[in-house]
């Protein structure tokens, strides 16, 4: 479905932050904020919860560890227990390095993969820019503009009061 949005662009992170606070204070639902770099304090201001990606890391890492251990044990002890320098078939200590490496590898790749999926990023995706230059020097707040008009006015007014360079309304889909 398509929505109507109010998009306000700011040249300064400070003013933008103030606007965000004001908007939330006035109970305007903020769709998202777009910035050329992660402005600190914005998460709290927008009330974004901390991501659960580290959990993915943990699981993927454990997966890698188990696979490495099982695989080495299987090849060295079960599949063909060769006599290598008279060492015991299950030379667990010798298996540690590979276990560690695979833990890190799979853990890392898993996390990144999960992030890309969650953030819906993939090669060749066509970008949707809130405002020109959000990747350069513009900070843009995007709020939902519900049907009834005065509310809409509210958002626009708050943004302008807080020093938005420009505020516009747009149709778009999320």
């Amino acid at each position, binding site marked *: 479905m398509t929505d109507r949005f109010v998009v306000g662009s700011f040249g300064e992170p400070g003013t933008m932050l103030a606007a965000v606070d004001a908007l939330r204070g006035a109970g305007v639902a903020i769709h998202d904020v777009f910035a050329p770099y992660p402005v600190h304090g914005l998460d709290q201001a927008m009330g974004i919860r901390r991501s659960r990606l580290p959990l993915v890391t943990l699981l993927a890492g454990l997966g890698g560890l188990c696979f490495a251990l099982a695989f080495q044990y299987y090849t060295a002890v079960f599949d063909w227990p*060769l*006599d*290598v320098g*008279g*060492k015991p078939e299950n030379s667990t200590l010798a298996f540690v390095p590979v276990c560690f490496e695979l833990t890190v590898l799979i853990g890392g790749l898993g996390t990144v993969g999960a992030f890309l999926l969650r953030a819906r990023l993939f090669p060749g995706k066509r970008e949707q820019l809130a405002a020109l230059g959000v990747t350069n020097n513009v900070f843009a707040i995007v709020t939902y503009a519900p049907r009834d008009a005065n509310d809409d006015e509210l958002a626009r007014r708050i943004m302008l009061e807080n020093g938005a360079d420009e505020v516009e309304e747009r149709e778009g889909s999320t």
Partner: protein
Amino acid sequence: MTNRRPSCEEAAHAAPGGGEPLVQIGLPTGTRSTGFDATRRDVLSLMGFSLGALGVAGCRAPVQHAVPLPTASVEMVPGVPNLYATTCGGCSAACALVVKQRDGRPIKIEGNESSPLTGGGTCAAGQASVLSLYDDARLRGPSWLGNPVSWPEMDRHIRTALGGHSDAREVVLLSQTITSPSTRAVLEDLRAVFPKFRHVVYDPMSLAPLRAANRLCHGVAVIPHYRFDRARVVVGLEADFLGTWLAPVEFARQWAQRRKAGAERAFHVQCEAGLSVTGSNADLRLAVAPSDLGRFAVALLAAVARRLGDEQPAGLDASALAQETTHAAAVDRIAAELVRSRGESLVVSGSDDVATQIVVARLNAQLGNIGKTVDLERPSWQRQGDDAALPALINDMNRGAVHALMIWGANPVYDHPDGAAFRAALAKVALTISFADRRDETSAHVHAVCPDHHFLEAWGDAEPVAGQFSLRQPLIAPLHDTRAAVESMLAWADRPADHRSVVRDFWRRALYGRTTPAPGGFEDFWERTLERGVVEIPRPPVATHPFAGDWEGAVRDIISRGRANRSGAEHGGGYELALLETVGARDGRHANNPWLQELPDPMTRLTWGNVACVAPETAAALGVATGDVVSLTTEIGKLELPAFVQAGQQRRTISVAVGYGRWAAGKAGDGVGANVFPLARVENGARRYWARVAIAKTGRRARLAPAQTHFSMEGREIVQFEHVNEHEHEHEKLPDLWRERLRGAHAWGMSIDLDACTGCSACVVACQAENNIPVVGAEQVRKSRIMHWMRIDRYFEGDGEDARSLHQPMMCQHCQHAPCETVCPVLATTTSSEGINQQVYNRCIGTRYCANNCPYKVRRFNWHNFTANDDFPYNMQSPLGRLVLNPDVTVRSRGVMEKCNLCVQRIQLGKNQAVLQRRPMADGDVATACQQACPTGAIVFGDRGDPDSRVSKLLAGQRAYNVLEELGTRPNVGYLKRIARKEST
């Protein structure tokens, strides 16, 4: 190990001429099996070039063909090796051999265990002689005046040139010692045909003085048959009887029998100028200059005489004589030992001086050794050369007295000081014929070259020692259009016969009668002898008389000359150049054999060339270092050689090996080293193998090709000693961190007796032949990339003249806790269930990590592709040379690691035989190549799992130890400590 066959009639009867019988025999079903097959090589070379080629090689394998014999052969099953007994043609010792023939190709030479002389031992040259069969330099057929001709044409030419036999024009055969009785008989026939037929015998390394001395002292001009196995004290004077002198294989065996006899162990003294294999194994070695040797012998004689209370040489008293030598104290002690074991002692001398030999004969006589350790009645028929004969012949040739000259196995232009004269004289002879197998220095200047067979293609027989006969039979149809020399001579004498029947008839006529008649008559006897290879046929003893030589004259002669020498020494430069034979080069006849050229000399560890060995003190005095080119000037002339600082070298002497510096031997042998034979001039009827020399630095440096560069053990316990009658406490085994692994049916192991190993290097060549080890050439050796799986390390203890030289055969130790295995990323090397450290070539990717981690540095890497690669023009480059390859052993490609695998192919064969015969394996079923070749039985291989096996017993013994035991590698190859005799003076 494989089916041993009476004779190889098939090969014998196959049509002569060219290789086609060979090709049919040699390529049975499955070209792959023949080891040198095209596909494998192509795949490898392809791989060598690019990754893509792997795909090529894999996806579309080259089509291979299988060519069965048109008519099935009874004897020859493709893939099954046959063994045939024959006789070595490598030198006049004529050792009995058993040759392994595979798909019609002789590929490996082994000693014949049933020979009472060698007992299965061989020497390096003998082991290598199989490669000479496939030598590219061999002539493909006869040639007349340099143009190839057919044999009938050749015979026509020669008959006309001989112009009938009636007229009394002299026909001369110049040959080296001929030990073949049948051939000697043929020569007698020739006398009948050619009224004035003369046989001139000469050896490059001659023992004429010894025979002369025996003529003067005992009335027979023979070389006695020495019995080192009966001697409790052996004194060698310039006689390298363990390495090169006379019959080294036989002597080494006898010597080792004594050495292993525990309490009966012989006391061995060696006096020599340059360090030799024999000297390095002596219990007491004295460095004596050639010019002092005689005086040493005299002093020894005097000392012995005094102890025996015998008369002293008139006008000379013992004390005075003792002063003649620099080793007065030692002389007395040796005399004591000799006298203590009278009749069980032996003094041998290779001296080139008749007087000295007379003194030695006197010594043996005084000690009552004649008939015990010195057998004159059943003498040796080796080294029958007469030094005076050749110069005489040259005169006759120049006089034009010689009408026809046949040269057989002799190469005087190369190895005689009068070579140039001889060459010139050849022009004055109406007809000169050579039987040489190649266009060598001499045969290049004759009218007719009638190439003789290689001994593996020929019939024949030998009697190296009176009464000890052995037969020779062909292992393969002649590769080229060659003809037995005997056949040629008979053809020209209008008595054409084929060599086989000649030998056979002689044996029926002359020998069979003297044997106990066999049930099956002569046929039976002949078959059995062919199969066994050797037979002992009693013959009437040679008549001798007790010692009656003018020994006092000899003594005075020596003394006077000695004094002259001394005074001469003061002003004539003061150095003496001593010529010596090395186990690899010998007298130079094998010069084109790359195996021997690359065989590190056990004493210098140098390959590809000879050097001037200089004593450290002398080197310091002259400011010469190893590698400096020095010029050696004698009255004969001047030559330049790289110097080599050799501990143990007598101070006043410089030793140089003969057998190098050939210029017409072939690709591998030409221009390697310098030829010093010209220095061995003939002086009053005998060749002198030493000369007064002036040495000088040239300022240039030469790049030697050493297989080992560091000779000190750095105080590490690598070669260990056990002191006689000194109790060794049982040393406790190191604890093991890991539980013993599950073992299979066997636990293969090897024990190497450092007290019996002489360093003769037969094992090294045997290993090379058995395992298809490539020759890499001097340049690669310099880069220390020699490929030998087995090497003989040489270390020095002490320094100067008294330095003791130690030999240690070193190959993969087959550790149970092998450091190399743990580090291989791809499991290319692991321990087999039978304890072998396996190396899997086709899994190896060549990280060389294993070699780095090997404490014994026994792993060898294929730095280049050494097969069919023109950068390495040795035997494995030429298709002919590759015929020697062992089909049961992989030809390694470039980039893989290799090493000793305890001849696993022989182990597998042994198992296979046991399975086929439905019996368990027995101790001794499997002999590794090195063990089989060893003349002293120093190497014993077997199953350590079986407590009764020889190897188990040996390795459980007092003397057993492992090299670098403290590293905990737990080798399956153990060593027996060398015995250090308590010096009790």
